[in-house]
């Protein structure tokens, strides 16, 4: 199978053959930046289309079907439409913070995006504290949302931003604790090592016993809340707050929040795939050699993206299954149910690891 790392190696050699090392590094950095930018936008466009089609299917509608075959170009058309909308300059806002907020939101999701394990040997940033860095960076996004709501000087945006802040910081705890549970099981925080550990087909959700399954359920609930989706979309409850924290943003300024929201959905599903479903590791069933061979033949990148899309589908499914929560119900769910369950689950995982009860 063609390995991307071989291509990268070849490119590196070729660049070094005709230019100075610092120039080669600069060119490679620019190349990585362009690649990130392209994959980020293409994935966001795909996700917007995917969500609209899935929502349509849940409501027995057709969804977008006019622009391009099966409406696949709908989100491209929408992107152009959003680019040619006027950027309205308001006279009551805090201009600096208002302009800063989309930068923070996009920066957070772009950094998380570049941490993901795209395939065997295809990972851009690979710290040894990978998953910890990812969690740390993802919380910059909350700052952007709070700034957006506060600087807009509008009552709806203020309420939306505060709800969002309270929700995102609360659910970050659950997310962090379920990640700790898996870190304790894996014994490493490096994203590439985690994938390597699962690459024999024993994904953590299979080998981790009951605590891994509980951690997965908590992670997916917390992830839905972190991305302000599904039953936890009260920061942008359209029936109460027009559009929540980004009410005052127009044109492409609004587009950034929209883009980041969909990418965050992908990132959360990607991290869930990494922690519980083996990242890029193919599915193996012990003893079924022919089956395993076929599974190995599928490229690792397709495995990763496929798992992330399946998990995103589940998160989108939540939205059409559960009614929206109230703020007090939301905080009760986190602080009185998920957090204690998570603490107990961590102890359970420690017991499982210490007594070697895992598979």
């Amino acid at each position, binding site marked *: 199978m063609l390995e991307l790392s071989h291509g990268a190696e070849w490119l590196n050699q070729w660049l070094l053959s005709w230019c100075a090392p610092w120039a080669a590094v600069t060119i490679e950095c620019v190349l990585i930046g362009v690649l990130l930018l392209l994959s980020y936008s293409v994935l966001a466009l795909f996700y917007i289309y995917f969500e609209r089609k899935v929502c349509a299917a849940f409501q027995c509608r057709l969804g977008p079907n006019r622009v391009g075959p099966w409406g696949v170009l709908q989100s491209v058309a929408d992107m152009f439409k959003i680019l040619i909308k006027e950027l309205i300059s308001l006279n009551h806002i805090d201009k600096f913070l208002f302009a800063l907020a989309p930068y923070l939101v996009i920066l957070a999701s772009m950094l998380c995006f570049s941490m993901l394990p795209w395939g065997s040997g295809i990972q851009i940033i690979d710290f040894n504290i990978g998953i910890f860095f990812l969690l740390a960076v993802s919380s910059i996004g909350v700052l952007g949302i709070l700034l957006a709501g506060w600087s807009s000087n509008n009552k709806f945006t203020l309420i939306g931003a505060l709800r969002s802040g309270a929700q995102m910081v609360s659910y970050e705890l659950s997310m962090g604790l379920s990640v700790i549970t898996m870190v304790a099981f894996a014994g490493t925080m490096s994203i590439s090592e985690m994938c390597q550990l699962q690459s024999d087909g024993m994904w953590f959700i299979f080998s981790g016993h009951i605590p891994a399954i509980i951690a997965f359920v908590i992670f997916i609930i917390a992830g839905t809340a972190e991305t302000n989706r599904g039953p936890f979309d009260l920061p942008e409850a359209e029936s109460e707050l027009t559009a929540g924290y980004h009410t005052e943003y127009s044109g492409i300024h609004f587009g950034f929040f929209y883009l980041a929201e969909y990418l965050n959905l992908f990132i959360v599903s990607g991290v869930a795939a990494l922690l519980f479903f083996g990242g890029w590791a193919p599915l193996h069933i012990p003893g079924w050699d022919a089956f395993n061979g076929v599974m190995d033949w599928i490229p690792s990148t397709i495995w990763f993206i496929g798992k992330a899309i399946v998990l995103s589908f589940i998160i989108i499914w939540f939205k059409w299954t559960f009614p929206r929560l109230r703020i007090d119900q939301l905080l*009760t769910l986190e602080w009185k149910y998920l957090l204690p369950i998570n603490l107990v689950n961590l102890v359970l995982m420690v017991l499982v690891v210490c007594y070697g009860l895992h598979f």
Partner: protein
Amino acid sequence: MVSLIFGIQNSTLAVVGALTGVALVALALVLAGLISPRSFNPQKGEAYECGIPTRGESMAQFHVGYYLYAILFLMFDVETVFLYPWAVNMKALGTDGLLCIAVFFGILVLGLVYAWRKGALEWK
């Protein structure tokens, strides 16, 4: 710490990622500034609320409950950060590490119990 691709330092790549994010926003804004229309109307600068002019201050005081949850979050988040290094080295640290972290963990749980009994987790 060297990345898998090109053997570039990871910290450099983190800066590249951050700059890419900034570049995405900046480029799109420049593009939108070039091709989007402009028209002036004093009504456009108003707050998007209910159609009538806003009454009172919008950057106003808000519910104290949000502060309370923020403080609780700070407490728990800082404590969970301390759990990470132990979680990585759990097998190597063995029983000693387990006992030490159990004390720490006990204090964390006590904090939650205290907040719960004080009614800090109720939304009033």
